[in-house]
């Protein structure tokens, strides 16, 4: 094997006296994909930030091409050919795609930005990541998935020798993810060393040459190509074996709880959607990014009211012109974007948990503080929310615990219809399982659960039934016994044009 491009030796890092990394080592070789996996808080992101010059280690050394180096800033890291694609998007939404790709290193002539060069070069990298948008398009107008690809295009345009990707596929549709994975393989064949962080173990299994597992800020183990398996990774990550990852059990389904007829959403005014949900079933809503999944849930929850159509909840006709009306009808929505739509980050766990049910527990407009406390005392242990206390601002909780707070807030309204949009995005494995278990419990207690996911494994693992959306209309429905990755994808890409009940 060639000598490593980049080595981290015994890296330690503390934040205000707390050790986030306890002597972690890692090496990246040219032409390989090194997957780094671990639960949230294991130290993956901190280690990556140190490699990319965002933060400096307290001790340990970084070796680039065999020589010990100090990487003091992102610019220095770039000079060594090390680029990091952040998990959180770092784009200027009001600028166009080309400007974002070249942000901070715009090609120029005598001080004037060379717009022509930006456009031609942007086109090249955009094509490489398989994103068909104009360089002049505003980033703010793109979907989250497309924005992620712009972020990747940005990293590609610096010709990095070591490319670090932190959860690059977490917001991509399956199709987009496939393009990205192909791109990664292509880069690997050209000798780029790729460090790949993902919670999607299936993806890691198919892609990685080596896996480095971190746990609690330390190296927990290494797996080589032939040793990589779902079970082996999970075992190293959590320090024990997980019996069954998806706790799915067949459910007894009851009455129709949600009956949607002729629903026309603002996002896809040309298409109508009809479907039903029954009590006690978990239904997956699959489709590519842009197929209108979130828009459908937003319409059902009254955030963006539908243009047309009737909705019955437990047989009763309901109007859904605002979230409050949907809540009164017994519908709850765990939204896609946890930080922006689901939580009040600076507010405490208590205030976040109670916000959706306050109006039910009021007396003459006044807060019922006893009920509020009781709610926290019920939810925190029931959902196993790990927080320093009920007043801890939720911004300091892990992704999984944040998501549990959002779910708890809706549990408090005792809904009959539970809509979840990407419920496990950015959540670590342990918490993922807990969320699955919660979904199971909800169904067992008679709620109808409809969840959107871009993670096919999750869709296959958790659904009693799958509805597939393609360009705003339902392209098909699959029962559990007919479920397969291919079947879902065929409907999602509408490769096979089934005459769906939804055509006008």
């Amino acid at each position, binding site marked *: 094997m060639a000598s490593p491009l980049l080595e981290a030796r015994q890296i330690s890092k503390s934040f205000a006296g*707390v050790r986030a990394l306890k002597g972690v080592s890692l090496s990246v070789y040219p032409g390989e994909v090194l997957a780094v996996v671990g639960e*949230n808080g294991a130290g993956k992101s901190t280690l990556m930030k140190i490699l990319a010059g965002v933060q400096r280690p307290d001790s340990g050394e970084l070796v680039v091409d065999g020589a010990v180096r100090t990487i003091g800033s992102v610019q220095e890291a770039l000079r060594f050919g090390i680029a990091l694609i952040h998990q959180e998007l770092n784009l200027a939404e009001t600028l166009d795609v080309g400007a974002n790709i070249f942000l901070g290193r715009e090609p120029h002539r005598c001080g004037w930005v060379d717009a022509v060069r930006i456009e031609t070069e942007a086109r090249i990298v955009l094509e490489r990541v398989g994103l068909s948008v104009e360089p002049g398009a505003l980033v703010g107008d793109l979907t989250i998935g497309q924005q992620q690809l712009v972020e990747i295009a940005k990293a590609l345009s610096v010709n990095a020798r070591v490319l670090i990707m932190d959860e690059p596929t977490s917001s991509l549709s399956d199709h987009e993810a496939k393009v990205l994975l192909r791109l990664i393989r292509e880069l690997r064949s050209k000798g780029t060393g790729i460090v790949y962080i993902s919670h999607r173990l299936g993806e890691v299994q198919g892609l990685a040459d080596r896996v480095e597992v971190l746990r609690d800020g330390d190296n927990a183990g290494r797996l080589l190509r032939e040793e990589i398996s779902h079970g082996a990774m999970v075992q190293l990550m959590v320090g024990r074996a997980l019996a069954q990852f998806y706790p799915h059990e067949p459910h007894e389904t009851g009455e129709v709880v949600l009956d949607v007829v002729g629903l026309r959403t603002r996002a896809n005014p040309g298409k109508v959607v009809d479907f039903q949900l029954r009590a006690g079933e978990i239904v997956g809503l699959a489709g590519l990014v842009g197929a209108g999944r979130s828009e459908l849930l937003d319409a059902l929850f009254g955030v963006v009211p539908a243009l047309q159509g009737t909705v019955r909840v437990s047989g009763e006709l309901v109007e859904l012109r605002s979230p409050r009306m949907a809540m009164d009808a017994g519908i709850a929505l765990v*939204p896609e974007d946890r930080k922006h*739509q689901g939580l009040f980050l600076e*507010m405490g766990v208590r205030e976040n948990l109670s916000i*959706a049910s306050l*109006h039910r527990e009021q007396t003459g407009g006044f807060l019922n503080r006893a009920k509020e406390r009781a709610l926290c005392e019920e939810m925190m242990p029931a959902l196993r929310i790990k927080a320093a206390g009920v007043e801890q601002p939720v911004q300091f909780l892990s992704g999984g615990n944040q998501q549990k707070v959002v779910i708890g807030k809706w549990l408090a309204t005792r809904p009959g219809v539970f809509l979840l949009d990407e419920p496990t995005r950015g959540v670590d494995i342990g918490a993922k399982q807990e969320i699955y278990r919660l979904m199971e419990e909800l169904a067992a207690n008679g709620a109808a659960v409809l969840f959107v996911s871009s993670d096919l494994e999750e869709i296959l693992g958790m659904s009693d039934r799958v509805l597939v959306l393609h360009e705003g209309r339902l392209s098909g429905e699959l029962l559990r016994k007919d479920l397969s990755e291919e079947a879902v994808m065929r409907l999602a890409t509408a490769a096979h044009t089934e005459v769906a009940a939804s055509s006008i």
Partner: protein
Amino acid sequence: MKKNLGIFGLLVVVCVVTALLSDSFLSAYNVENVLRRSALFGILSIGVGFVIITGGIDLSLGSVVCLVGCALPWLLTVQHWPLPLALLAVAAVSLGIGLFHGLLITKLRIQPFIVTLCGLLLYRGVARGFTADQTVGFGTEFKTLRLLSTGKVPFLPGFDLPAPLFFLALVAILAALFLNRTIFGRYLLALGRNPQAATYSGIPTQRMTVLAYVISSGLAGLGGVLFVLDVNSAQPVDFGNFYELYAIAAAVLGGCSLRGGEGSIVGILIGATLMQVLRNTITLVTTRNNVEFAIIGAVILVGVVADELARRVAARRRAARVLLSSSAG
């Protein structure tokens, strides 16, 4: 409460220093004056505080003070309206202005800055229009009505409480109850923190926003009435000029974040008082009041910077604690 400690400390320091430098600062007469002015400005500041808490801004309140301050004497002494009708009219106008702002902001989605900036120009212009730029006042009439602002309630021997203080107390108590004890107060805070999440939580965000602007303009109207009753005359060209900025400064000093979601009534009261004490200090201690704005500006800046630094230290500590708990768990 802990958050207001810094600004409260600053107020105490300014008071102690002034008392050491000037014998008259703690005289009953001066304390009464400062309390009355703080009460008048405090009412305005609480109003704008509500808007700031929702993440908005109200630049029009100085002009609302002007409109109402000119309208009341004009209606009473020029148009000879009966008192209850005139009071009702100015109340309706000030609340109506808030409603108008709120609807423009929520239904037409025009930015609060622009809506209220236009209001700033509009209402003063209207006041100047119907008064034809003439100074309006009560002259020697309406002495009883004016007691609402100029009256005093004996408190200690030789020390009376100025009437506006009671208005302030009432407003402040109601505001504090509303903000901290009702679901609507919680909604306002949540809305200010994250309007999108508020929508997704089923909070009637539009109604809450409108409510905040109605409160702001309504209290500006009350302030306008009390101001004109105190001063006895109003010139539409300059009455209430810049009061929106004093009110916003007081609210920000008192811990309201212009990003929304943060703010306490106690803090706003301390902020408003600090502003008035500073102005008093400058007149009492120095013989030049032309540096007044420089000093006020500097003190506000010091207060806000100190607050920001304190917040950062706290955040760093908290982050450390979180890391500790997550690496332990």
